[in-house]
């Protein structure tokens, strides 16, 4: 984990084209960004391609980073856009006009997920249908708004809301069944 000062020094180095600074920045973010790529594609070689493409974009567009927000957030957004531009399959979400509540309460997931390991949580999310999983990851994990998701996936905002609602409903059902199995066996 880099401090803000270290990040600034590395960014300055990268802007002047210093290869060692670029390598250090790559090492600092590659692991996390690989996880992000894997969230949207289970194929490791495809994830590696996105990782490579994402870092090239990060280094070539670094002069556009204004330093107003978090650098990691900026890098993450570049990766998300790279992944969705290169993977047309992710874009194929069903359109729907159901409108649900925009502000979501994650208390239920938080209570259950906090007792689970990361790999178990990820396995559970992985079991969701493709469209639900994509919107859930973008909204809950990446922190995108419904408008941003709609722009990215070229869908209606209502579709994004609906997919998130259904994803959470399905997750809650899965979590409830896990909980009831646990309580029965104990």
């Amino acid at each position, binding site marked *: 984990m880099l401090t803000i000062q270290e990040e600034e020094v590395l960014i300055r180095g990268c802007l002047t084209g210093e290869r060692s600074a670029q390598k250090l920045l790559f090492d600092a973010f590659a692991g996390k960004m690989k996880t992000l790529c894997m969230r949207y594609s289970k194929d490791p070689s495809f994830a*590696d391609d996105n990782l490579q493409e994402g870092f090239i974009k990060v280094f070539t567009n670094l002069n556009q980073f204004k330093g107003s927000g978090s650098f990691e957030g900026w890098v993450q957004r570049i990766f998300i856009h790279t992944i969705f531009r290169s993977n047309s399959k992710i874009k194929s979400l069903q359109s729907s006009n159901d409108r649900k509540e925009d502000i979501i309460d994650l208390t239920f997931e938080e209570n259950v997920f906090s007792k689970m390991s990361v790999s178990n949580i990820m396995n559970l999310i992985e079991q969701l249908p493709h469209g639900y999983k994509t919107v859930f990851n973008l909204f809950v994990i990446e922190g995108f708004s419904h408008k941003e998701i709609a722009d990215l996936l070229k869908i209606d905002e209502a579709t994004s809301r609906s997919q998130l609602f259904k994803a959470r409903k399905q997750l809650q059902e899965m979590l409830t069944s896990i909980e009831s199995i646990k309580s029965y066996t104990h």
Partner: protein
Amino acid sequence: MNKTSFVSKISNQQSYYSPDVWSKVERELDKKRKRRILLFFLFSILLMTSIGLGSFYFSQKNNASTQQSDIKKQNIEDPTNDIPKP
């Protein structure tokens, strides 16, 4: 939205990546840098050629107009110049 603990747990997770990725990134960055240098070089050549051609054209134009004004000057000084000599 504040990141809840399970969200930060997931987003902070690191995955193994192939060491080849960095060498590919490096290679691609080198290619882009070379392409940029080449473009800069071509642009400089184009610019210099245009400047050269432009200055040549204007100097020729200036020479022509100087010669013309010299002839006119001579004609003014010696008006008989216009009359064909027998």
